[in-house]
């Protein structure tokens, strides 16, 4: 059973310089208990997609143009704002990239944790406080009953991200969306945070969407991966297939830019030449063609569609 179903979602930004097609016809689903990886460079629309259907983008300039998003059978795009608000932070939680700026510096950790519970459940303040402390213990914060009184700036980056995770899990969400949860952290503590998310996921049986620009991050954690480029899905496959038989040239390029321990000396780490396109004026045909090493004639003329190739879905004229 799919907990989240996104069909043909289009979300554009209406800026002074024209329409930026940040999310352009994106479809995917998340099964119950599954971890989905969403991979792409910055500006690929990998975060915006999720912010869009949760109503977290400022409008204007952002506008959902068309599409369908169902969460547990409920239509997110056509429900009233109040019902959507009641889902956020409750059934669907988010963790953001930078714990430095994502926690309110003016409020204590206690306030920020407790309000998350009190907004969605009708329990006493004491119970909310207890649950908050338990939440901190769960994510491995030592001396939780003391730390809960601190302000964000008094905690280290890793601690702050643990607080963010605790905050996201307070109401036992069905779906956790983790937007680059480790990018802003030191390499040494990245693994710990990822492991924590994975353990809690297994413990609570929730579904997770893990958004990252780094394929290396998702490798061990995800069941399935979608690769996004310039607001569109380029490839969708199981994690195993993505890593072993990548189809899309962009996926291959991404894989080559991941440092690997088994890389032999002569095998240089490759970076993808060029920059992601300007989404106000996307390239004609396949949006990846200006950077594509395997470009063929029709790439700049015809837009490829996402089609099934074996066990995968890929949007490329080569298949």
């Amino acid at each position, binding site marked *: 059973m799919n907990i989240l179903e996104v069909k043909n979602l289009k979300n554009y*930004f209406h800026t002074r310089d024209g329409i930026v097609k940040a999310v352009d016809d994106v479809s995917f689903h998340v099964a119950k208990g599954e971890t989905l990886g969403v991979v792409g460079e910055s500006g690929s629309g990998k975060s915006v997609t999720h912010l869009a259907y949760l109503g977290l*983008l400022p409008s204007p300039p952002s506008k959902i143009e068309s599409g369908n998003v169902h969460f547990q059978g409920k239509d997110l795009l056509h429900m009233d704002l109040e019902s959507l608000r009641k889902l956020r932070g409750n059934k669907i939680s988010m963790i953001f990239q930078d714990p430095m700026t994502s926690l309110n510096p003016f409020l204590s950790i206690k306030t920020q944790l407790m309000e998350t519970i009190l907004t969605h459940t009708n329990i006493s303040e004491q119970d909310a406080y207890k649950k908050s402390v338990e939440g901190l213990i769960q994510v491995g914060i030592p001396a939780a009953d003391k730390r809960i009184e601190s302000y964000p700036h008094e905690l280290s980056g890793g601690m702050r991200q643990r607080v963010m995770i605790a905050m996201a899990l307070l109401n036992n969400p069905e779906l956790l969306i983790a937007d680059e949860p480790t990018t802003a952290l030191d390499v040494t503590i990245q693994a710990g945070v990822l492991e924590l998310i994975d353990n809690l996921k297994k413990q609570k049986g929730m579904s997770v969407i893990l958004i990252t620009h780094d394929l290396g991050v998702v490798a061990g954690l995800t069941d399935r991966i979608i690769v996004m480029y310039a607001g569109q899905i380029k490839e969708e496959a199981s994690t195993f297939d993505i890593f072993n038989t990548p189809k899309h040239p962009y996926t291959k390029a991404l894989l080559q830019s991941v440092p690997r321990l088994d890389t032999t000396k002569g095998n240089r780490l490759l970076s993808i030449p060029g920059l992601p396109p*300007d989404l106000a004026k996307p390239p004609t045909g396949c949006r990846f063609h200006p950077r594509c090493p395997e470009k063929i004639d029709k790439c700049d003329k015809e837009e490829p569609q996402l089609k099934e190739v074996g066990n995968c879905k890929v949007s490329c004229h080569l298949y």
Partner: protein
Amino acid sequence: MSSIAKNYETIRIEKGTSLLRDALYRLKKNKLALFGLSILAIIATASLLTPIIAPYSYEEQDLIYGPQSPNKEHIMGTDDLGRDLFTRILYGGRISLMVGVLATIVSLIIGVLYGSIAGFLGGRTDNIMMRIVDIIYSLPFMFFVIILMVIAGRNIYNLFIALGAVQWLTMSRIIRGQVLSLKEKEFVLAAKSMGVSKGSIILRHLIPNAMGPMIIYSTLTIPTVILEESFLSFLGLGVQPPMSSWGLLITDGAQVMEIYPWMVIFPASILALTLLSLNFVGDGLRDALDPKAKKD
């Protein structure tokens, strides 16, 4: 995520235009700033050409009729001595604008000197000098202007020295910040290692680097000074008759406004319009030169 939309904008800006062209572009798009600029141009020209364009002489009285409401001969009416109000506003404007500009220059000189000395010497001296600025900031410095005016005599030169002498605080902070950041710049350190005096390097680079903030802050100081001059004139401590300024005209007008309301309405509107324009231009310049600065 609004930052995404913002990123697209910055990418576009960085693509073609240079910084200055970009600033000009932004200024041109700012209708309020352009409006302010045109009003200021008109007022400045009128003040410069006052002796030519004034319809009457400054002292000329129309005693037969006494104070007249606006009419064909006197478009803004006449004052209680039968003097043409439009002429008096033109002459008053010369004084008000002159005080504004000159006092701003005085404040600029003091601020630049003080700020660059503090920034250049650094360390303890800098600490003490800036602490002094902090303290003066919190004091009612108009009181000191009033004392200066009372003891040094109420003439116009003392006026703009006194006003300039209390307006330099912000300027000194700006300049100090610039000097401090310049001191850390690589080319300054490099020059030093090559035996060039640090001071001369900093001076050479200070002016071009600090130009933007200096211009912006000066445009915002002029209205403050004009306002303060009017304030002093209102209290009888500013410009003295027979000279006149907008503040003095407003004061005179306010005393008889029950009978001759135009005597306060015209000079007050002109003053408000000038201040409004200067504020528009100042804000516009700040937005144009420093788009990242907070809008308020």
